[in-house]
């Protein structure tokens, strides 16, 4: 039996929110122009997303899945998650 389930791609709004989140909490240099920084470097977005997923002990996929978005939507501290 095939265990595959339909998946949906994140919307542009969700993607933009994720970019903001990663810029704010997982960018060591503190660059925060998400719509310009990440669009020019999809690998960088995926790599940072992997770091975030690893930090939160999520399945490291580099994809913006439901579990990852759930963590991003939790209330939290405003300090970055990477030491600086």
């Amino acid at each position: 039996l095939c265990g595959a389930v339909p998946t949906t791609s994140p919307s542009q709004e969700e993607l933009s929110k994720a970019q903001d989140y990663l810029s704010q909490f997982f960018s060591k240099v503190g660059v925060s122009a998400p719509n310009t920084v990440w669009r020019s470097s999809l690998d960088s977005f995926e790599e940072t997303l992997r770091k975030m997923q690893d930090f939160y002990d999520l399945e490291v996929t580099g994809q913006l899945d439901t579990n990852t978005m759930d963590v991003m939507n939790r209330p939290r501290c405003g300090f970055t998650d990477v030491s600086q």
Partner: protein
Amino acid sequence: YAHFDNRPKWEKTVVTYRIINYTPDLSQGDVDATIAKALQLYSDVIPLDFKQIYSGTADIMIVFKRRDHGDFAPFDGQSGVLAHAFSPGEGHGGDTHFDEDETWTLTSGGANLFLVAAHEFGHALGLAHSQVRTALMYPTYNYVNTEGYKLPDDDIQGVQAIYGIRET
């Protein structure tokens, strides 16, 4: 636990704090007592004491503000970011800001001031975010019963690695 790069710390044994303004969500007495209780979590385990002052510049300046409040890190309205704090140092070092758009409580509803303040004071003393889910310094908010609350082991080890152990 984790520390900031260069492991900044307070090079003094008495750290002052001042509550610049109060949230209307709680009485001033409750805020005073809650802030003191949150700081005591740390003074119970490390050789630092905290003293509240009512004028002038304290090491840890505490404010409740909404949206843009002059530190290039504007708050985002209700939920999302609840608060933030600066690592130890001169000037803004140690300063702790709470988002006034949150509903501050002493219960499980809204944002529990004691738990959030205790987390932020961890930053003000030199702790970065921990990946340990049960640690106070875990980045996301999780309500736990605050009755008889003690600092989790991960946070104790982290702060004692900076300041040493309090001799009883």
